[in-house]
């Protein structure tokens, strides 16, 4: 752009004159986003007010808010929201704990640190599908490793996915194993930013490790932990592959999350309008979370400033 400006002089200069430059720089991004995202969003939002079924040729009729009303009064939906909340809650908490401990471990500089760090970062690079498939194999009572390792203690084979609680645990462990390193990265960035002389002062003041953590380390990573919570909650809310592959929502419907239910209504029952309505309710919840997320980011900026 700059080169153009120099050569064309007139037109280029007009284009790049400060008042319009901001808008000009933003346009390519906005155009791609609009074409790819916003149009489909509006299309399906409109859809949620009709009773369109993708598989039938009947002309869709306007249904107003009845789709939303139907979804909100559907007791199955609330049951799925509850399951999703349990899975999201336990997974995020587990990710926080593991991520935090890993970050503490990596906070020190030690030989071969980069290699060990790579070992921990690899799970994030796998596809949800492959993690789901292999963890299901690990949990399998006959072939899996878990039951083999536990066979010393349990009289007969330990069936991880046999009970609703076990199934939820299976999903949470797989998801947490994959994404705890992300939380670790966030916390590690916080730990690395703590000035070293503060720790030296604490050593001089003979502070106990707990007091040292509470006074120096924690303030620096507090809002980063919050960022991790919000970010992982939003991503885990959309969790589909791991749940569908490991338990398919079973046993019964005890691990059927909103994403799985959304998939079924949209692509197995072809209730397109109803699934759009449900999807927008999910979107609304996610948008509320995004605001919390932004609020945390701003508070973080002031605090450290």
């Amino acid at each position, binding site marked *: 752009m700059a080169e153009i400006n120099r050569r064309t002089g007139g037109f280029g200069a007009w284009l790049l004159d400060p008042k319009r430059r901001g808008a000009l720089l933003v346009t390519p991004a906005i155009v791609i986003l609009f074409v790819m995202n916003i149009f489909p969003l509006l299309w399906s939002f409109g859809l949620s007010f009709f009773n369109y079924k993708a598989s039938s040729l009947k002309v869709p009729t306007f249904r107003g808010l009845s789709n939303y009303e139907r979804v909100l009064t559907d007791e199955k939906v609330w049951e799925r929201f509850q399951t999703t909340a349990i899975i999201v809650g336990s997974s995020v908490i587990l990710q926080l704990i593991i991520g935090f401990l890993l970050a503490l471990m990596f906070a020190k500089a030690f030989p071969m640190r980069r290699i060990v760090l790579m070992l921990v970062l690899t799970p994030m690079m796998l596809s949800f599908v492959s993690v789901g498939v292999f963890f299901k194999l690990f949990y399998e009572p006959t072939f899996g490793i878990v039951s083999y390792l536990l066979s010393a203690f349990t009289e007969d084979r330990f069936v991880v996915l046999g009970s609703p609680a076990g199934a939820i645990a299976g999903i949470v462990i797989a998801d947490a194993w994959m994404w705890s390193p992300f939380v670790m990265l966030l916390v590690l960035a916080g730990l690395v930013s703590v000035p070293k*002389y503060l720790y*030296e002062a*604490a*050593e*001089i003041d003979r502070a106990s490790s707990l007091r040292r953590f509470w006074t120096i380390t924690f303030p620096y990573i507090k809002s980063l932990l919050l960022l991790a919570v919000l970010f992982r909650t939003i991503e885990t809310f959309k969790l589909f592959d791991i749940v569908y592959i490991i338990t398919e929502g079973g046993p019964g419907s005890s691990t059927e999350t909103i994403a799985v239910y959304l998939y079924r209504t949209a692509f197995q029952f072809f209730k397109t309008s109803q699934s759009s309505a449900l999807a927008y309710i999910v979107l609304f919840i996610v948008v509320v979370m995004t605001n919390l997320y932004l609020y945390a980011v701003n508070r973080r900026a002031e605090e450290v400033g």
Partner: protein
Amino acid sequence: MTIELKNLTKRFGDLTAVDTVNFDVGDGEVLCLLGPSGCGKTTTLRMIAGLEYATEGDVFLNSKRVNELAPRDRNVAMSFQFYALYPSLTVAENLAFPLYAEGLSSSEIEARVQKISDTLQLGGILKRTPGQLAEGEKQRVAVGRSIIRDPTCFLFDEPLSRLDVQLREEMRGEIKEVLQDLSRPTVIVTHDQLEALTMADRIAVMRDGRVEQVDTPHNVFQKPTNLFVAGFIGTPQMNLVPATLSELKGAGKAEFAVKGGQSMTIEVDPRIQELSVGTNVTLGVRPRNLEISQEKSQDGLSTTIDMVEPMGAETLIHLNDGHQDLRLVTDWRVSLSEGQQVNTSFPPGVTHVFTDDEKVLRTS
């Protein structure tokens, strides 16, 4: 309580930051580590504190070898160059922080905090956090956090370096007064010689990891043991004139020839006799000791005035004889102007003689 360093050395790979340092600090004594940046003074301090461990040599606190001990086991109080105040705690909490380790009851802690905040006038800002304090206030809280304790010794790393001149003046007095009634050895690291001269009972001048001289402020000023200490201490800087001994005239008298042909006979330390004629030496004389004589005199050089720098009560005059420069400080009332011919004279007993190994010739 005492601090003793025996052949203390610190190497970072093949760089020797501190090279066989030896000195002791008695109870209640204040010793300043003075030297240009990178001379190893802070590293030495950190080795006393235990934040760095010695490559060779030993640190004794209260005649107990502490090399292996972590800072927390040495019970030293240290204030840092950047104050190292805990950003999330208020001033009161910062002051109280070191006392938790001493197992005091909360009421005792409160009392101690109150006492320190009175002595350092922190009353108004006890509730604020470090982010809301001015430099001076931060500095006082940092000092307060050290002296509130009952440590084995006090260590200060450039306590005043971040203050403006006027505030520095004020704080120097305050700290000196506070340190007086604490019967603990204190080591202060600084690169500001004025700070060292005013606050220290003794000063250790350091260069490239070695201690050049440990002595009272007076002696370090008046009797520098080598060329470096002489040049480093005192502003404006001492005149250092390279010369060759041309004739010995008995007792302390001797004639020296300088670059450019002039020569002068001055009275120096009697040990000049030990030198043979023709050896090169460096003559050192403080600008305030150099005098102006009316007519050409035997014990000085004739020069012309290069530049005149009025400094308020005194005036600094830059002189030049075409080959070397001299600095002379006179009373402000003496009227002199550039280009004027001036004859200098080196009064007896003020000129130091440094041999070519930079050592001073002096009958101790």
